[in-house]
């Protein structure tokens, strides 16, 4: 493909994409020009696919055929962000946001809305878009979306990721064209340096500096790697980028190859992400076919190729040296640094490794300029950050906000608050390597340095919201179980340290904690931090240390009073029957799996049957009695 051909695709299809970015009158005018009266976007990301969005597309195509609506375009996109409402379907030019679609719903929408002169089916819309006066607002104007600024996710949920022409029309490969026609490798690196972009994988190392080191390294052969081994359980930003806009990663890696003098790239992606892997492979094949990857890219004399390597479920492979060892086909164990990968990395050659979200920021920096990018965000953290919002929050999903946005804005406005009338307790960021942001820090502007200062870390972007039904000691134990399980075993402080730390935490949650356990934990944690080989071990104590900093009272209660306020730690729970409320129906005894409940001699005033009682020595604290009692006579303390 030549630059002219690239231009002509852009021209031919850019209006079609634009309709999906602007709405209301302007969008309607533009839609007329495109030849498609309506465009229906259906999410084909993992979240919506899991809630059967493929059946939605099938039915949609069938209904359109039956109604002979050939001026309606169906587009299978990546993630829109609001995964808990899937399957999601958006109709443009109105921007009407239909949620939790079923094949029957789709048929109704086709018959009532998509036909000529049809009207939006309000009952099937996401109710957050229906105003009190009955008017409908587009998805882009909802509280969930309005506060967001989408740079890395700019094309996710907008284009069909399996169609390279849509990607090109949406702006992909524009940066590559600019780089190859008008920039030297040094220009590219200087632009990256000036932008202030920092690695989005967690540590926040300046991307431009990484590239500059690799460029300065001597050697004919160098490599560019993409870390798509998104290991933090509860984080799915990288997956969504790969599913929604895989071409942006291919393009950015090619640009980096040009900047540092590399001709081969590797994407190391989790095998647990089948849709992302498949879309990435399709994108690579299409880029090859069009001459945007491979030899003599765009006829401009630069060669670059990309290979996909699948991970096999090892968290430690998210660490850069371990990832490279794994690509080399070995056990994914980390190695000591220095030498840093920029000097001696994959197959012993100078290598740069960035994660998917970092790559997704490169192209806009090139096309719009470092100045534009560096004006977004805070003093030390530029641009935006994508968070995978999960846990006990109303709007579970993917959000991208400017650095410096407060946790309160994310939780209360974008996230829609805590469901079931519960109280916000803390947000966990950085996964098993991170810590928590407690309620008293909810107004802290989120950036790399502020999070470190309050004892958490940015991490890759998992943000799990905890409410008062979550026990912080239990959450720490959960993370330690994870790191103890995932420790590769190469270095002693991590291999044994995680096990011992987990033992201490288990002891505390089982009600066997002793007063000096807190001190033991602190001591062990400090040794692990200072002497582990890689970031996994160095940061494994973080979840414990950070919860102990803000929720020390919970640890003390568990140890001294043998009490778990949230009612999570089973060993400390006690089920009792209020003998005056119990009518003696015996339903609890019937449901008790261990026959721990029996009749007493006591008959309460006004009741005919004697009340029941639980034998604490037999009780396994399963809660079956509580769930079945219709008279609220059973108490859990």
């Amino acid at each position, binding site marked *: 493909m030549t630059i002219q051909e690239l231009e002509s695709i852009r021209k031919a299809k850019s209006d079609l994409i634009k309709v999906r970015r602007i709405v209301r009158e302007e969008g309607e005018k533009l839609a007329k020009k495109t030849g498609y009266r309506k465009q229906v976007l259906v999410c084909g990301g993992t979240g919506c696919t899991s809630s059967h969005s493929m059946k939605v597309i099938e039915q949609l195509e069938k209904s359109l055929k039956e109604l002979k609506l050939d001026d309606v375009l169906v587009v299978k996109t990546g993630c829109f962000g609001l995964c808990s409402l899937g399957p999601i379907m958006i109709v443009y030019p109105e921007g009407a946001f239909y949620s939790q679609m079923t094949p029957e719903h789709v048929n109704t929408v086709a018959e009532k809305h998509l036909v000529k002169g049809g009207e939006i089916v309000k009952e099937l819309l996401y109710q957050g878009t229906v105003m009190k006066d009955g008017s409908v607002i587009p998805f882009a104007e909802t509280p969930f979306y309005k506060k967001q600024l989408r740079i890395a996710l700019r094309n996710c949920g907008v284009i069909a990721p399996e169609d390279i022409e849509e990607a090109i029309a949406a702006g992909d490969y524009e940066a590559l064209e600019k780089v190859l026609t008008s920039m030297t490798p040094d220009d590219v690196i200087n632009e990256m340096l000036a932008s202030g972009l920092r690695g989005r994988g967690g540590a926040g190392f300046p991307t431009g500096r990484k590239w500059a080191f690799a460029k300065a390294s001597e050697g004919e052969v160098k490599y560019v790697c993409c870390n798509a081994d998104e290991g933090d359980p509860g984080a*799915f930003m990288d997956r969504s980028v790969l599913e929604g806009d895989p071409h942006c990663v291919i393009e950015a890696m090619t640009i980096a190859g040009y900047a540092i003098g590399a001709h081969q790239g590797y994407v190391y992606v989790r095998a647990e992400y089948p849709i992302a892997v498949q879309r990435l492979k399709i994108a690579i094949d299409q880029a090859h076919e069009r001459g945007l990857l491979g030899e003599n890219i765009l006829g401009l004399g630069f060669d670059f190729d990309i290979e996909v390597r699948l991970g096999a*479920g090892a968290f430690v492979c998210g660490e850069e040296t371990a990832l490279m060892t794994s690509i080399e086909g070995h056990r994914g164990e980390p190695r000591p640094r220095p030498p840093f990968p920029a000097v001696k990395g994959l197959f012993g050659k100078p290598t740069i490794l960035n994660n998917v979200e970092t790559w997704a920021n490169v192209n806009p920096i090139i096309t719009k300029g470092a100045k534009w990018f560096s004006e977004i965000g805070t003093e030390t953290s530029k641009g935006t950050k994508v968070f995978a919002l999960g846990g006990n929050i109303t709007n579970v999903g993917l959000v991208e906000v400017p650095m410096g946005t407060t946790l309160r804005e994310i939780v209360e406005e974008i996230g829609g608050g805590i469901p079931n009338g519960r109280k916000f307790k803390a947000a966990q960021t950085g996964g098993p390597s991170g810590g928590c942001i407690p309620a008293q820090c909810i107004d802290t502007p989120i950036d790399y340095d502020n999070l470190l200062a309050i004892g958490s870390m940015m991490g890759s972007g998992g943000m799990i919201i905890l409410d008062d039904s979550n026990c912080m000691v239990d959450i720490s134990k959960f993370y330690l179980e994870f790191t103890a399980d995932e420790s590769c075993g190469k270095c002693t402080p991590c291999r044994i340290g995680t096990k011992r730390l987990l033992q201490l935490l288990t002891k505390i949650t089982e009600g066997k904690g002793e007063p000096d356990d807190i001190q033991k934990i602190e001591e062990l944690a400090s040794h692990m931090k200072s002497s582990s080989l890689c970031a996994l071990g160095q940061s494994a104590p973080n979840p414990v240390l950070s919860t102990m900093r803000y929720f020390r009272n919970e640890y003390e209660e568990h140890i001294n009073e043998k009490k778990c306020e949230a009612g999570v730690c089973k060993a400390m729970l006690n089920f009792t029957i209020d003998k005056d409320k119990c009518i003696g129906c015996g339903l609890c005894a019937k449901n008790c799996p261990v026959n721990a409940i029996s009749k007493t001699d006591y008959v309460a005033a006004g009741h005919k049957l004697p009340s029941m009682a639980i034998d604490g020595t037999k009780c396994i604290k399963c809660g079956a009695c509580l769930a079945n009692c219709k008279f609220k006579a059973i108490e859990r303390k």
Partner: protein
Amino acid sequence: MEQCTPCGTPEQLKKLKAVINESRSTPGCLMHILQEAQGIYGYLPMEVQKTIAEGLGISLSEVYGVATFYSQFSLKPKGKHRISVCLGTACYVKGSDKILEEVEKQLGIKCGECTEDGLFSIDSCRCVGACGLAPVMMIGEEVYGKLTPDMVKGILDSYREETK
């Protein structure tokens, strides 16, 4: 995924050898071959690891070392329906441990084991990325979301019915 006997069929061996020949010249191909081999056999019996070691001219201990390092590889056969309960953070805070308990109770086996009739095996996994539907479990490729313990029996029964 095909079911297999410990020694495998000649067709399986043929497929495996083809994969080895195809990839042996690619640097770092061992993981790819193990992944393909697990796709062919359903798991990685010792005989298969030996074939791979011989085919690549490396020691069996190296193959075994890699096969046992990554949680995706299994040295034991799995059930016809592979159940994988997500214990990622988003699912955990929404009570996926109770889902796992219920699956274990219903099938009478523990996580990591296979039922005697070979119909089900249970594993836990770390995030399938469907956090919006938490808590989730996968059976084969199918994802079941927004689960409660009382839904488990019905789901398992539907697979039992299917096999009858």
